[in-house]
């Protein structure tokens, strides 16, 4: 099977759909047209650039290029997590909690997959490493952002309840246990839903891409299952560690709720 190559007029035609949506948004006073246009232009530019970068990476297979590429992805993901918070942690923590959790969880799970499951030669072969890391980051970023946002917002709204529980002699971890559990849950629900709906309600993107590129559906499905499990593990570990570190950060050494650590 040979993939049909898209040219610029094909993409131009597709962009008409975005323009149509923007016009509709203007007509209905949704005030979404601006962000719709900006983000579609962003995705065009960013994907075009990453296409060029990936081309270079595939032509010069070296681990240091890969590390540089992944580091940039991580830093951008950390920034995105921070931007999505309604109440951010102050200082470096606002950036560090999410970034560090994504770093640890994504790398642990990706290395596990590359070294023990896929066994490519070399193990960092960009054909496998890049799609894997990219998808892990995308999902871990969503989980961590949702989890942290739910944590800080929940604590902000329920500060009186938390302090009442402290007053009754509960430790910080007991006083915040409910909010922490709910926050981890809200970070994990999207991937749990995605797994439950996969194949029945939705055809996951990676599998669809492989089939479009001419792979046999059964082979594509195997990779999709692998990726789903890796994503769930990476998102889960990342969300749990970010929410746990964040929860601890909201109390001082005397286990007093200190919202001074939030902006």
């Amino acid at each position: 099977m040979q993939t049909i190559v898209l040219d610029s007029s094909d993409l131009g035609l597709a962009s008409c759909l975005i323009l149509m949506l923007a016009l509709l948004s203007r007509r209905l006073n949704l005030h979404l047209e601006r962000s719709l246009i900006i983000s579609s232009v962003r995705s065009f530019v960013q994907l075009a650039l990453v296409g060029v970068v990936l081309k270079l990476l595939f032509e010069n297979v070296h681990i240091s290029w890969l590390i540089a590429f992944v580091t940039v992805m991580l830093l951008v993901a950390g920034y995105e997590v921070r931007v999505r918070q309604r109440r951010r942690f102050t200082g470096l923590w606002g950036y560090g909690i999410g970034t560090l959790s994504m770093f640890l969880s994504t790398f642990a799970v990706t290395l596990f997959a590359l070294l023990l499951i896929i066994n490519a030669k070399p193990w960092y072969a960009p054909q496998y490493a890049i799609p894997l890391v990219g998808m892990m980051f995308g999902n871990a970023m969503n989980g961590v952002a949702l989890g942290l946002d739910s944590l800080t917002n929940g604590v902000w709204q329920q500060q009186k309840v938390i302090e009442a529980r402290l007053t009754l002699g509960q430790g910080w971890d007991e006083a915040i246990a409910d909010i922490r559990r709910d926050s981890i849950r809200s970070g994990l629900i999207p991937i749990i839903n995605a797994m439950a709906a996969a194949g029945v309600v939705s055809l996951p993107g990676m599998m669809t891409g492989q089939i479009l590129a001419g792979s046999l559906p059964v082979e594509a499905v195997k990779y999709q299952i692998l990726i789903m499990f890796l994503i769930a593990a990476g998102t889960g570990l990342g969300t749990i560690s970010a929410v746990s570190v964040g929860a601890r950060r909201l109390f001082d050494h005397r286990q007093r709720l200190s919202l001074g650590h939030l902006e």
Partner: protein
Amino acid sequence: MQFTPGPCLIWRRILKRLLVDALGCHGIGPVTFAIGAREIAILCGPSGAGKTVLLRAIADLEPHRGNVYLDGCSYLDIEPPQWRRRVAMLPAESQWWHVRVGDHFRSVDGQAFQDLGLPPDIAQRSVTLLSSGESQRLALLRLLQNEPEVLLLDEPTASLDRSAALLVEQLVKGYAEKSGACVLWVSHAVDQAERIGGRRFELYHGQLKETCGHADHCA
């Protein structure tokens, strides 16, 4: 600057159940006072004088300067959850996080509810149905379950009628008498202060002074 206690202070530290020593927090203080076992002291002062902040600082919910001693033992030498169980604060506004009232109690004692004029089956009720007066009395019972040695009460009868307020006063007096706890009671009601008796403190412009029971700002 390190505060060095004189011999008089060391003596009081041993004798008194609660000693607040040069405590400062959010524009209050330094505040120094002591309350002995079984003593109920009234704290009054105009709104916004920082009575709640003072109570929160003693319960170690607010970062503060100075020191607080329980039976001669500094709060710094006691784990925070244990300190807050022993030096218990009743906030002016009580909070409930489980579904039913009874879920907040280790064991449900219908008699204790009745003694405060509450219906004996109130433990089965949903917390969303509590009136502010019921909520306040239940919060006091919940706090007493921890058998605290110091009670910091922030206007515990503010939303109660006179008869319910009398029941609360009786309960607290009885508890202090029986357990040897000391009580710091924030109250605006002059008649309440007179019924309870004991010393009265007034917090005014961030400074605490002991009044003789007829302070101008307490009314």
